[in-house]
């Protein structure tokens, strides 16, 4: 220890935060962490609750559901059921990080390392974020969205706007293009193009619906044009473009919800990677600071206590267990990658021949930049991490009265376990796969959605309520068929069909 530490007390001050940030930034640069500029904002715990309830968005349009979120957060916090996060960080440029004023100096330093250099560099360099989000435009877009919603509220009434937003929120997980690359959003352009678009869209929709409906019976199979030609995964987009009865401003609202959902989509796909990356770097940066004498031992003790709380994984039988902790999983994988590069064992050489003995920093940057959770786990989850975390897989078949342990952390189980865990983080596995398959153009204009089951897992009971929302947006009958393979297992209709027993029998016979 050659240097005098930056501070010794636990109180933070603005100059101290700046000084710490400077040192952390310097070390981060040595590790080639490439970041957006940082905007560190100190806020109070009440403001943190505000930030919580708006998914961290610095400004959002008004909606009752955020109020509900706020009340819930407030209630839980005040009753001591939960602590507040130490930070919230927003994928924007400059990258905005909220720090709580209650934090001690070591906490603030930890949070700066974690958010302003960990998450920030992830936002800037991961391919998903690069492709799907435009960090410089998001704030402007949020401003635009907020203004537009307010305008609509003034013109059409809060109630009406709320109804549309409710329905859009119900479908927001289905407002993303999973495969197509989106065009970047820019607020200025949105605004200028919006009126033009309104007129044009309405025209397009009218074209599609130009035909006069023909009574059901008269229609022959040949006449029938299938629309859409291919199943559409982006239901909100489909509705925005094709719903027969929506007003232009309603389409614009659908678009806003869809764009925002799209913006947050990468975050949902990279939870493990992102949190793991940030945790790895706060750990590495703080240790390096300690090695260079910038921080004291007491400081380090406090840091380590917080750090281990963050990456604590309760075992499956603990009462605190609520699934795998993404911080832990990610942190362990990155740490082990570094170990594999620096001190490879025979096992590592067998499993990761390309990585063993390579430069660890190159490897980690590569791993962070080019994957999402699913592929990241598939690529980099090592046997050692599985052993350390004692991972095991439980197979649950509704037709069996017993669970089966299908794989554990042993020679036979590693690959299977890794594949299953990767699949568990596949977003399209987590969310039911539902697509638009048909619109009855000539008949009753009904919309048909198809749920393709995976392993015969059905939809939950909310499905019917969501269908109500789809129905509200679409304006005509909506059907949902839930299929395992080609076989339709369940049908839902909105408005619900009251079938006579004969009809029900007939309906049932169709699927035999």
């Amino acid at each position, binding site marked *: 220890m050659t240097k005098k530490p930056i501070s010794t007390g636990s109180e933070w001050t603005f100059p101290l935060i700046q000084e710490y940030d400077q040192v952390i930034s310097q070390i981060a640069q040595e590790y080639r962490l490439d970041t957006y500029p940082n905007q*560190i904002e100190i806020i109070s715990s009440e403001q943190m609750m505000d930030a919580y309830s708006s998914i961290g968005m610095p400004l959002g349009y008004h909606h009752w559901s955020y109020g509900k979120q706020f009340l819930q957060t407030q209630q839980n916090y005040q009753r001591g059921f939960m602590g507040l996060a130490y930070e919230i960080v927003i994928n924007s440029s400059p990258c905005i990080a909220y720090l709580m004023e209650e934090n001690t100096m070591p906490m603030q330093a930890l949070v700066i390392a974690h958010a*302003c250099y960990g998450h920030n560099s992830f936002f800037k360099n991961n391919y998903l974020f690069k492709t799907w989000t435009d960090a410089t435009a998001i704030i402007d877009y949020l401003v635009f969205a907020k203004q537009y919603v307010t305008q609509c509220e003034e013109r059409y009434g809060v109630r009406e706007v709320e109804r549309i937003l409710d329905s859009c929120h119900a479908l927001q997980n289905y407002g993303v293009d999973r495969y197509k690359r989106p065009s970047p959003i820019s607020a200025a352009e949105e605004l200028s193009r919006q009126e033009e678009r309104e007129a044009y869209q309405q025209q397009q929709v009218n074209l599609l619906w130009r035909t006069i409906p023909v009574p059901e019976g008269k229609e022959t199979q040949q006449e029938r044009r299938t629309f859409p030609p291919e199943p559409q995964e982006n239901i909100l987009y489909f509705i925005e473009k094709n719903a027969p009865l929506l007003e232009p401003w309603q389409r614009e609202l659908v678009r806003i919800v869809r764009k925002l959902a799209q913006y947050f989509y990468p975050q949902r796909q990279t939870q493990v990677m992102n949190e793991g990356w940030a945790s790895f770097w706060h750990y590495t940066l703080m240790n390096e600071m300690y090695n260079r004498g910038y921080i004291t031992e007491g400081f380090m003790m406090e840091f380590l206590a917080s750090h281990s709380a963050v990456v604590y994984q309760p075992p499956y039988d603990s009462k605190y267990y609520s699934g795998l902790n993404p911080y832990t999983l990610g942190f362990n994988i990155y740490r082990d990658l570094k170990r594999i590069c620096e001190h490879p064992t025979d096992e590592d050489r067998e499993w990761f021949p390309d990585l063993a003995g390579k430069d660890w920093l190159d490897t980690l940057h590569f791993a962070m930049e080019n994957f999402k959770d699913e592929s990241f786990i598939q690529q980099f989850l090592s046997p050692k991490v599985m052993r350390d975390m004692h991972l095991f897989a439980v197979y649950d078949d*509704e037709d*069996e009265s017993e*669970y089966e342990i*299908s794989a554990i952390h042993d020679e036979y189980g590693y690959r299977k376990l890794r594949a299953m865990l990767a699949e568990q983080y596949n977003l399209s596995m987590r969310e039911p796969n539902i697509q638009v398959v048909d619109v009855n153009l000539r008949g009753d204009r009904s919309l048909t959605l198809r749920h393709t089951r995976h392993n015969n897992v059905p939809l939950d009971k909310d499905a019917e309520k*969501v269908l109500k929302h789809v129905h509200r947006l679409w304006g005509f009958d909506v059907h949902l068929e839930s299929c395992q393979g080609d076989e339709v297992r369940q049908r839902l209709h909105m408005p619900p069909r009251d079938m006579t027993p004969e009809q029900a029998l007939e309906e049932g016979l169709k699927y035999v």
Partner: protein
Amino acid sequence: MNSYVIDRRLNGKNKSAVNRRRFLERYRKHIKKAVNEAVNKRSITDMEHGESISIPSEDISEPVFGHGRGGKRNIINPGNKEFRSGDRIRKPQGGGGSQGQGSGEAGNSGEGLDDFTFNITQDEFLEFLFEDLELPNLVRKELKEMSDHVYRHAGFTSQGVPNRINIVRSLRNAHARRIALSGKSRRRLKELKALVEQEMEKEEVLRDGHSLLAWQEEIERLDQKIRRMPFIDDFDLRFNRNERVPVPSNAAVMFCLMDVSGSMTQNTKDMAKRFFLLLYLFLRRNYEKIEVVFIRHHTSAKEVDEEEFFYSRETGGTIVSSALKMMGEVISDRYPPNAWNIYAAQASDGDNWNDDSPQCRELLAKAIMPLVQYYSYIEITPRDHQALWHAYEDVQAAFPEQFAMEQIIDPSDIYPVFRQLFQRKTT
């Protein structure tokens, strides 16, 4: 280097206020129901805080498509201790499946979620409580006190103190005056200049040197005259004028009259207290300043403090008119009706000395009713009405707008009766 540190703590914390209000608005019905139930359950001294509201989560859920139970699936868990590949474990009977939920999914599939619970503040509580209610005859009266005057802008004057100068108007006046007073001179000046110019255009020999000189002298003179015109004059000044305007009084006095004779049990008094309390809270939402006068009576009336009013024990007969008389005295002593909004609430079990009831009627009709905004009488008794009630019925007939009476039998009646008395009139 690339970082900015910003202190946002001063920005205010109520960013979510709008959303919160939207939420309350949306679930208004639920909240009102909870508030009404709470009023019936709460103890008397307990009206002045918020309330915890529960709404069935079913009603406020935001549905999304999710996986239901069933089918086949693999779930990865950490912390294996004794399991080996191929082990089989019996599924727990009933609900079960808690072990089998992957991260993030635990909340979605559980059945019978708890109610959504949150707190509303005291203000919101009272707002919900008194929604649709209105103070009858809410005529605000003028108060003579100094504090009830405000200065309002009332045009402009030509006299005043320098700090009230209206610069724009003063300068505009000055400008106008300068234009008006110099008009003649400037017109002449223009003419002369034109003449001079005309003359100058002539060949030098043809010029009339004499007139030219005279004109130029006059031009010089006019120029000076115009320049001597003062830029601003006393005469131009305008001052903002303020006027002392009396504002409607925000003060009310509430008289609580209660029978404390032997027949009134503590239970009856508690019910009365609840009623008084509701009235007090309600008045407080409408007036800035409220005074409460407690008058209790048996055979004679006495003005007392709150504690004594509700809790001291007395016995003896009942003469209601004594309290009314006392109220009249207190009003004429301390609360001139032109300065105070006077409300009165009387609670009794209906007992009165029979000969006294007509006297009460006289007193009320002649002396009290003309002075008060509203008089409400509640009779807390399960028994039949007695003379006092019938006497009051006459009063009600005479003052249907200002006088109200209801019977209360048990505590759950209090709030409905209160609502009934103060229901917003639809007309």
